């Protein structure tokens, strides 16, 4: 065996790779489905947590780790896992893209579907290296600089965050709805075998594919369409996303410049059949006669698998006569993209919406850091929204400015923050929602004393819509739901006059801002269904020093 020759028959590597893709994709989907609180019959006194490390793919994501390190100057909790991807990439190259990445595998699958646009010569042409593949490096440069200036726009394009977000918020809710509709239709029939089938299917999918309750997400359609577009682009150019846009691919491509695994081309054995090009994923020109683009290669091994003549071989420490080791970036464009990243942050943040007139409904989940630190960490993966048992966390559109798009906001009308729940803080991979314990959220110290609970906002009455205030009717639902003890909502007896001129006794509700934690249970439960008579705004949130209005709130008793 020659120097550095890879031991295994290279024809078989394709199959191993496919197995790896299937395995990792299955694991990814499994963990995504497990990112839902399903409860258990085991009684728990303290924190209720998910049994699986559901955000492990996000934690192992080197781009998430690098941008977080740049913006927060630290690595949060599990982000160290990213090293198990990053370090082997130094040695091997972009194996992650071809073997592990769930978005890569989906692109691979859609790219291998038959397409009118990719037939015969067109197909070979579509797989040739194109200069526009350098775009992703410019994107990466801009995102890294933005991260350095404290903004995690990278999350919008990070492939893992994008896939989790799109599937969790845009695709799975639709799947759930469709499944329920089919089951309901089957249950509705009078045909016994169909009912039996419905029961069987229900038994199989409940607790796995089917959610306990139908999730609804704002932006779901847009997120789904973005994702579908990425998939459809594969019908024109295989893995267009991976080749042209993916910033993680760019990062891994850039760091693979010294890698020891490479393609060696043997001009003398090549018959110019071009079969190596047919299923090339990266667009890296594996055929002899053109330079091999190392940074573009996904190590899918389709080229060596298809080669009938052993004209190309992967080897450790290959001869580098026909290799371009690093992406040939143009200095001017690189400077331009660095500058773009640098000016983007000041432009986005010098708006009143960011500084002085923040959207009052921007209620962040408990444990969320102050807005600056939050935006420096949130990669908009949507894990917190997926896991929220009340469906309360929703992706923002412009409530947090353009910069904060698709970051989490609590919408009490859809769901309130369950007082003892800390699941969003458990799954957040980057610490934008810092991991908290139930005792911290409730303001109970370890010794059993009580401190200040975490507030996410404060409730206010709209007396024009409130039944006892405006319509001479009894209603104490908000007070009943208020979870603090003593309750933040208190009732005072009042005499009101109804339309017939009769005096009636009702109890009118008030909010005590010293006690309100902004959980939104009152707003959620308010029977004035469409526009509630009590609503929460973010003022008074613990995480902010400036978004306050009461001179001194109750100090923690020590």
């Amino acid at each position, binding site marked *: 065996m020659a120097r550095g020759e890879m031991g295994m028959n290279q024809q078989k590597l394709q199959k191993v790779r496919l197995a790896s893709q299937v395995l990792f994709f299955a694991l990814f989907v499994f963990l995504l489905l497990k990112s839902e*609180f399903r409860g258990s*019959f085991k*009684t728990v006194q303290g924190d*209720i947590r998910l049994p699986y490390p559901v955000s492990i793919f996000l934690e192992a994501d080197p781009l998430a780790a690098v941008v977080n390190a740049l913006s927060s100057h630290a690595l949060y909790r599990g982000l160290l896992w990213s090293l198990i991807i990053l370090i082997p990439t130094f040695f091997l190259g972009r194996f992650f893209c071809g073997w592990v990445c769930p978005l890569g595998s989906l692109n691979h699958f859609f790219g291998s579907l038959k397409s009118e646009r990719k037939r015969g010569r067109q197909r070979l042409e579509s797989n040739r290296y194109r200069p526009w593949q350098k775009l992703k490096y410019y994107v990466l440069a801009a995102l890294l600089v933005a991260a350095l200036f404290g903004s995690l726009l990278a999350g919008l394009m990070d492939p893992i965050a994008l896939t989790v977000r799109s599937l969790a918020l845009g695709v799975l809710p639709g799947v759930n709805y469709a499944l329920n509709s089919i089951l*309901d239709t089957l249950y509705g029939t009078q045909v016994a075998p169909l009912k039996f089938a419905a029961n069987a299917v229900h038994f199989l999918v409940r607790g796995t594919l089917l959610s306990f309750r139908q999730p609804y997400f704002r932006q779901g359609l847009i997120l789904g369409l973005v994702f579908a577009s990425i998939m459809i682009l594969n019908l024109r150019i295989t893995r267009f996303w991976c080749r042209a846009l993916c910033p993680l691919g760019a990062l891994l491509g850039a760091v693979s410049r010294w890698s020891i695994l490479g393609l060696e081309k043997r001009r003398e054995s090549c018959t110019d059949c071009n079969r190596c090009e047919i299923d090339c994923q990266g667009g890296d020109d594996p055929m002899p006669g053109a330079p091999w683009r190392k940074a573009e290669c996904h190590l899918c091994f389709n080229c060596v698998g298809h080669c009938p003549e052993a004209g190309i071989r992967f080897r450790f420490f290959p001869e580098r006569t026909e290799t371009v080791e690093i992406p040939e970036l143009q200095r001017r464009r690189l400077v331009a993209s660095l500058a773009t990243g640098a000016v983007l942050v000041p432009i986005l943040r010098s708006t009143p919406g960011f500084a002085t007139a923040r959207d009052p409904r921007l209620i962040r989940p408990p444990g969320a850091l102050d807005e600056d630190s939050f935006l420096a960490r949130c990669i908009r993966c949507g894990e917190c929204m997926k896991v929220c048992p009340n469906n309360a966390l929703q992706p923002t559109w412009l409530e947090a400015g353009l910069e904060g798009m698709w970051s989490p906001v609590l919408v009490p009308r859809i769901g309130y923050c369950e007082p003892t729940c800390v699941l969003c803080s458990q799954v957040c991979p980057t610490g934008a929602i810092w991991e908290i314990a139930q005792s911290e959220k409730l303001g109970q110290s370890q010794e059993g004393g009580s401190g200040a609970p975490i507030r996410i906002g404060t409730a206010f009455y709209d007396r024009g819509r409130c039944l006892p205030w405006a319509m001479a009717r009894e209603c104490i639902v908000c007070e009943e739901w208020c979870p603090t003890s003593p309750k933040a909502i208190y009732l005072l007896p009042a005499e009101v006059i109804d339309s017939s001129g009769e005096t009636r006794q009702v109890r009118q509700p008030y909010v005590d801002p010293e006690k309100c934690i902004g959980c939104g249970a009152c707003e959620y439960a308010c029977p004035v269904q469409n526009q509630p008579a009590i609503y929460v705004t973010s003022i008074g949130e613990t995480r902010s020093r400036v978004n306050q209005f009461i001179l001194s709130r109750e100090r923690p008793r020590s």
Partner: protein
Amino acid sequence: MELAEDKMPSNPHPQSRREAISRLIGLGALGTATAGLGIWLRDRSRRPEQPAAGSLHKDFSVPPDPSLPEMVVARAEDPRALVRKALDPLGGIRRFISAGETVVVKPNIGWDRTAEQAANTNPQVVAEVVKLCREAGAARVIVTDVSINEARRVYQRSGIAEAARSEGAEVILPEERGFREVDLRGDVLTTWPVLEPFLIADKIINVPVAKHHSLTGVTLGMKNWYGILGGQRHRLHQRIHESLADLAEFMRPTLTIIDAFRVLIRNGPSGGSLGDVELRRTLIAGTDPVALDAYAAQAFWDLDSGRLHYLRIAEEKHLGTRDLQKVRTKVIEDGQG
């Protein structure tokens, strides 16, 4: 572009008269069928109406026995022993449950609180009731409630799911699919979604927990029937007393067991602080739901039943009696029995 011979559209000009006639007949049949379908569909056109609600009215109670008390108040150190102690004087579980029946046990599983915080029914009390029903030969014992907080958390946190299952109960979480529209035929309550187990049961045992409530003063047995309803039940509070009486008229339980082992004395119905809880180690069991509520309100909050408007309405509806003098009562103190 040239099309292959077999892909050419079929010649529109028929070759023979015979062919022309057969095509005309075919088209005529198609036209007739289309017109027929159209007319049939038009005849089907109705202004859409809400599907009619079922009206299942069932009395789950057992015949009265003048030789037995109607209400038993028992006190003991152990919640499980307490259940047996309270039920024995009433004639034992076998008076209420027969072999092969489907029994629904309805605790309060409303809030994301632990057993010690007393916002939900004591899990040991529920477990013991389940155990007794199983011993009496019940085919199915279902434990369910429409929670107020997020159901998955509540069932887990309260400890009721685990305790009930360990005694062989079927624990059913309220799923969206699990409700049926029912006409309650009440004075203020008309059509509401009711959780299915309450409609298929042979016997129903109400196991509420005694708690403070700012609107009615207390939440006891009758208020527990809130938990059979889905939908926008927060509207009920506007006419709470009439609503409660309507519910009590719809739901006539086999047996009511008010759990007052721990009593949420203030800040109800959700509580949250152990400072709001008093250990009373009491169970009130009986067949007269009105009397039980009246007794508990008097015993724990010193509230006269005359001030509980819903009990007055319930009495007018002949659902029970508020006058505790007229109720055959047996009190068993700790150490007795």
